[in-house]
């Protein structure tokens, strides 16, 4: 029971962090059709900016400023880069963001160096939040969940309750019609790209402190973000939310479990020994294959349900 509850909490908090990361990607994709390969790079920028700003201003001002600066940078990239590339089609856009990801990584190395940054959790948020049976749940994990939920709620309110939200929702599917009604759709695209990258930046502020801030951090979360977006359904925020939690929980549980095929066979009375063919495969533990599970899910999803859990567009 203790193991189950703690793993569930850890899974949900990791899932919520994934959601912070992938919601921006999903928003950008559903609206602009741009698969932003550099999305995780904005996560990295958020972490580095938060570290640097935090040195002078402290963690909490950095928590607000770093996402805003990341979003501004994203908006500039859209305005002066992507918008020009847009007329050459989605492949050109994809290649553009691919190149951008490398550019950002190399720039980070030049500015901050190769070593990881001593970006730590602030003292107020360090330590256990509560203790469940014998295991303690860290404060920062709780804070991470709080920030993610606050973000989810704000994005929801913005999209559902404001005029700009209506314009964004309509432009998701009918950009030309929206523009013919007199709305500046290119500017809306810039806002969405800026907003989406700001969300990634926010995830970076949190993720950088919780895990590690180094030049390879973008590359390490990049693929998983795509898994969330595809499994949830390209273009569906609710889908991204579900998929984030699902992947967060599956991965957390899988890492902690030592189940193997050999063990399961043994339980039903079939012995697997070193002489059994493919012995190394049989004895693989779930925890050993945990990192592969999301990608397995990605591949299966694309084969059996290409539009994802809640996706609306199959293209």
């Amino acid at each position, binding site marked *: 029971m203790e193991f189950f509850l703690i793993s569930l909490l850890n899974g949900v908090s990791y899932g919520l962090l994934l959601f912070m990361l992938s919601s921006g990607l999903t928003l950008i994709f559903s609206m602009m059709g741009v698969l932003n390969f550099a999305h995780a790079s904005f996560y990295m920028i958020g972490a580095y900016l938060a570290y640097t700003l935090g040195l002078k201003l402290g963690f909490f001002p950095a928590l607000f400023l770093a996402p805003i600066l990341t979003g501004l940078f994203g908006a500039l990239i859209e305005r002066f880069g992507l918008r020009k590339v847009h007329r050459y089609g989605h492949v050109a856009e994809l290649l553009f963001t691919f190149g951008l990801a490398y550019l950002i990584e190399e720039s980070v190395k030049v500015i901050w160096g190769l070593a990881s940054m001593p970006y730590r959790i602030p003292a107020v948020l360090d330590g256990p939040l509560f203790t469940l049976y014998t295991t303690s749940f860290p404060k920062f994990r709780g804070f991470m969940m709080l920030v993610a939920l606050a973000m989810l709620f704000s994005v929801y309110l913005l999209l559902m309750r404001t005029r700009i939200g209506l*314009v964004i*929702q309509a432009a998701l599917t*009918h950009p030309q*019609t929206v*523009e*013919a*009604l007199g709305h*500046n*759709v290119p500017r809306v695209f810039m806002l969405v790209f800026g907003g989406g990258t700001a969300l990634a930046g926010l995830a970076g502020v949190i993720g950088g402190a919780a895990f590690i801030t180094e030049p390879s951090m973008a590359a390490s979360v990049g693929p998983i973000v795509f898994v969330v977006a595809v499994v949830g359904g390209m273009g569906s925020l609710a889908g991204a939310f579900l998929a984030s939690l699902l992947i967060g929980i599956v991965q957390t549980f899988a890492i902690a479990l030592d189940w193997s095929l050999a063990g399961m066979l043994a339980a039903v009375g079939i012995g697997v020994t070193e002489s059994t063919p493919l012995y190394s495969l049989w004895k693989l533990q779930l925890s050993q294959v945990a990192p592969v599970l999301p990608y397995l899910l990605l591949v299966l999803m694309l084969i059996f349900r290409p539009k994802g859990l809640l996706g609306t567009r199959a293209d």
Partner: protein
Amino acid sequence: MLEVRDLNAYYGKSHILHGVHLDVGDGEIVSLLGRNGVGRSTTIKAIMGMVDCQGSVKFKGDEMVGLKTYQVAHRGLGYVPENRDIFPTLTVRQNLLLGQKSARRTGRWKMDDMYELFPRLGERADTQAGVLSGGEQQMLTLCRTLMGDPELVMIDEPTEGLAPKIVEQVAGLFEEIRKRGISILLVEQKLAIALDISERLYVMGHGQIVFEGTPRDVRENAAMRKEWLEV
């Protein structure tokens, strides 16, 4: 009010419009007729800046070619797309709100005017627009554009696939629009409604204007109708 001269439009490499010219005066209802694929829809899309084009489109004396679509809309040109291009996941009320160009600017049409003209829209104000019937969706696209307070509204195939009773209602709305001093450029394939309400008509063929005249001229010219309109 609207003067189109030597308008050429392209989809990629194919040349769709070959020097189209047309005029719409203040408060006038003008129809643009022709068979499918002759470039009627492309003409109004080109006027709205939605396709690549060359030539001149003057609205109230200002050149529109080269402006972005939203800028053209802000100058007072309204466009009602064909195929009832509503926003299906938003409610009827939200669709109408999106017709307004800004939250502050209100024009000669209010939300209640729309509900009065089409009580069905009022009854279904909080329903998702996607579940409305074809006729209701058509009314919604029209009303949505009117909420933006255009001075000239271009309407693409408003009666396509509608029941005769709804067509009557739509024709009634055109009268209401004209009463409020708004000009209409109507794109139609069918003659009936266009002949009844238009002051002047243009007929298109092969990306050009091949005929222009009054409803009477069209009625009397059987040869032209046979060559360019009848299927």
